[in-house]
């Protein structure tokens, strides 16, 4: 059976600031206005989990397990 490859794209802590700037989120982040797209908690250095595109915008999730589960649902377009 042919092996397929999946890729986990990741950003390392040291480059997180650069990534936030590249994606146009840094200002909101430093102002405390960047929120988890699922639970709406304020995103901080400690709880930032992942970035994903949704409906033409860059969304961010926090590290709460429920939000991580919901992230899979959103990116795969699964049934809610």
């Amino acid at each position, binding site marked *: *059976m042919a092996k397929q490859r999946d890729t986990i794209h990741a*950003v390392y802590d040291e480059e997180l600031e650069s990534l936030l700037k590249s*994606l146009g989120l840094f200002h909101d982040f430093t102002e405390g206005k960047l929120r988890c797209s699922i639970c709406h908690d304020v995103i901080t250095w400690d709880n930032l989990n992942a970035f*994903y595109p949704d409906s033409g*915008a860059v969304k961010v999730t926090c590290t709460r397990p429920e939000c*991580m589960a919901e*992230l899979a*649902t959103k990116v795969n377009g699964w*049934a809610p």
Partner: protein
Amino acid sequence: MATLIQLLVEVVAPLGFVALVLLYFLLNPEKVEIWASILWRLLARFPVLVKKAKRRYVQYDLQGRINDFTKVVLTEAPYLEHRRVDVEWVNPGELRKPAFLADGRVILRLHATDNNDENFVRGSYLYISTCLLHKAKRYISKVQREAIDLYVTGKLLEKEKSHIVNYFLDEYLHPRTTKEDSKLVELFDAFGRLQMSGLFYEIFIQELQFLGEKVFGGRKDPVIHEEVGNLILFLDKIANRNIGEEVPLEFTGTYCRFSIVMVGKSFNLTTGGEVWTRFIETHVTPSQIETLYLIGNWQVHDVMDAISASVAATYEVMRTIKRQVQIFRDGDPMSVENYLLVLRRQGISVFGPSIQKR
């Protein structure tokens, strides 16, 4: 076999230990990744290398251990797609917002840390939740999907980093034992019972894979949620029965249609397993059963192989599994070695529901 051994002795032995090690790593690239992560962790003690080494350690630890786990899973569930995982660092300097929006990919944040456990939990969970059984998961209910993801991630952690299983359960499962999520815990516990009884968890995953192949690309059907729920209850009841206890062994849903045939009652046992062959021909074959699971003690595997040969015109052997499992005698658990034959009806279509809904 003797030729192969002779070949190994003549060709490999002169090359020595180094060649054997190289051959081992060539056949097990995930082991190379795990050893690389250990090496980078050691190198992180040198100040001049610390930044690069920690980064590499985080990358290879996650990548290698997920690949190591999926390799084991594939030996038990070879019908699952064989996927290798690569962890790739994004380069923020090259990444542009329009490209990110167009690619549709998730970027996971990984910490620069000496303690990689939290990274590992989040990376594993992301992988399991987005890649495992992704066809079927599109159609099953949210709570069923989450229970599978939590259960499999727990198994991955148990194998690769057992010291963090409790942390994972405390953070991910236990907070969700509130009333509204109690279904999730019920399912999680049921998967544990199915796996402890061995071969019924295999049957569950196999049926989900068949289901995914059937429905993928079609519309979402609430019937599927109910059917998967019934499937779990059905298997759980069999897994927890006492020896000799009569429970239904045929599942005839809209999408999943299978029969479990237990081989082993000694007074019926003949070398050719004629009693079971006759039962399959008269009761199973005329119905719309698509998959036949023959289960029995390893001691009667010859009989089971004979039965599968007798019904080969109707059912082809997809795979066999031999496994140590737990069964119950008068409520007390006991360990036995069991054998499972998965037989699929010849020419069965995997597209569309098995039967037309009324």
